[in-house]
C-alpha cells in the first residue's frame, strides 16, 4: 500500500433502504472491492456487497458516484 495514503477504510456501509442495485459502484471501483449479492434486498434489488475490504484504498469514488447516496465509507486517519 502507498505510504503517503493517510486514510484507512474501517467499514463500508450500504443502505438497503435506498440502494437500487445499479451496480455502478461495482464497475467503477478501481480495486474490485464489491461483489453482486446473491440474495435480494428488502426492496427486491441485487445489492452490492463488500467482499474484499482489505483492498479498499479509500478513494471514495463509490461514495461520490452513488446516485442514491446509499454508500458510506468510514475511514480512520493513519497515525503515521
Amino acid at each position, binding site marked *: 500500500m502507498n505510504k503517503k495514503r493517510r486514510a484507512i477504510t474501517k467499514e463500508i456501509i450500504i*443502505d438497503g433502504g435506498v440502494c437500487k442495485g445499479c*451496480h455502478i459502484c461495482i464497475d*467503477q471501483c478501481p480495486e474490485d472491492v464489491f461483489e453482486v449479492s446473491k440474495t435480494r434486498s428488502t426492496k427486491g434489488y441485487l445489492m452490492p456487497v463488500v467482499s474484499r475490504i482489505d483492498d479498499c484504498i479509500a478513494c471514495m469514488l463509490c461514495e461520490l458516484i452513488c446516485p442514491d*447516496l446509499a454508500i458510506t465509507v468510514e475511514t480512520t486517519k493513519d497515525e503515521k
Partner: protein
Amino acid sequence: MHPIAEKYIRKSALPTIFCPGCGHGTVLNSFLRAVDQLDIFNTLGLVSGIGCSSWTPVFVNTDVMHTVHGRALAFATGLKVSNPKLDVIVFTGDGDCVGIGGNHLIHAARRNIDMTVFMLDNGIYGMTGGQVSPTTPADAKSQTTPYGNPEPPLDVCALVVSAGATHVARYTTTQPRTLISGIKKAIAHKGFSFVHIISQCPTQTGRYVYGLTKPDEYVRMIREQSISLAAAGKRSTEELKGKIITGLLHECSDRPEFVETMTRLRRA
C-alpha cells in the same frame, strides 16, 4: 444513508423517483456536497421545471419551486429580482431548457442575471417515454425517430456563450470530484453561470440510442468519451469527433449584472 443525505434530504421523499443508475442522483449527491462545503444551505432558492432532471432539487429539504415546463428560468428571474440575497439555482433538463424553454435560456443569459443553471443532459425526454430532444445525437433511434434522428444536436454551451453568459462549463456525472469543484465554482461566480452536465439515462438513452442494457456500461462509455479541455487543446478536430470536452469553457466578468442594474434604477 450517507450523513450528507441525513443532513439535507427530505426523508419522506426517499427512495428517489429515479430509475436505477440514473445520473441525476449523482448530480444530487455532488450538489449536496458542494452546498455542504460552501455552507450556503440557509440562503438556497432552488427552482426547477418539468422532467426527470427537475425532480433533483425536490429531495433537498429547503425552499424549492417546481414550476411549469420550460419556464423555470422565468420563475427564477422573478425570485432573484425580488430577493437578491438568495442563491438561486435552477435544475433543468435538456428538453426543458433548450427544447421547451430555449427562449427563456437565451434571454436569461443575455440579462446576465446572477443565478446558476444546471442543465442535466441525458439526450432524451426520459420521463415521457423516450422522445427525441434537441441534444439527441444525430442518427439516434428514439421512440419518435425510429429510422434515426435526422437533426444534428444543438451545442448549448456555444449558444449561451453567444447569448452573453459569463460562466459556461461542461462536466459529466462519471467524474464526481471534478463535478463538485465545478458546481462550487459556478455557484460562487457572480453573473449567469451555466453548467452543462452530461448525465446518463439507462432506461431510455442507454437502451434505445446506445443499445446498452446496464447502467455501469453506460457510465464507462461516458467516462471513455470525456476529455478535459487541457487535453483536448493538443488534439486535432478529427480526434475530438464524438468526444465530450469537459471543463470551464468560458468565463468573463466584463458584463453588467442584471440585479445590480435593477437596484441602481430603483434608487435613482
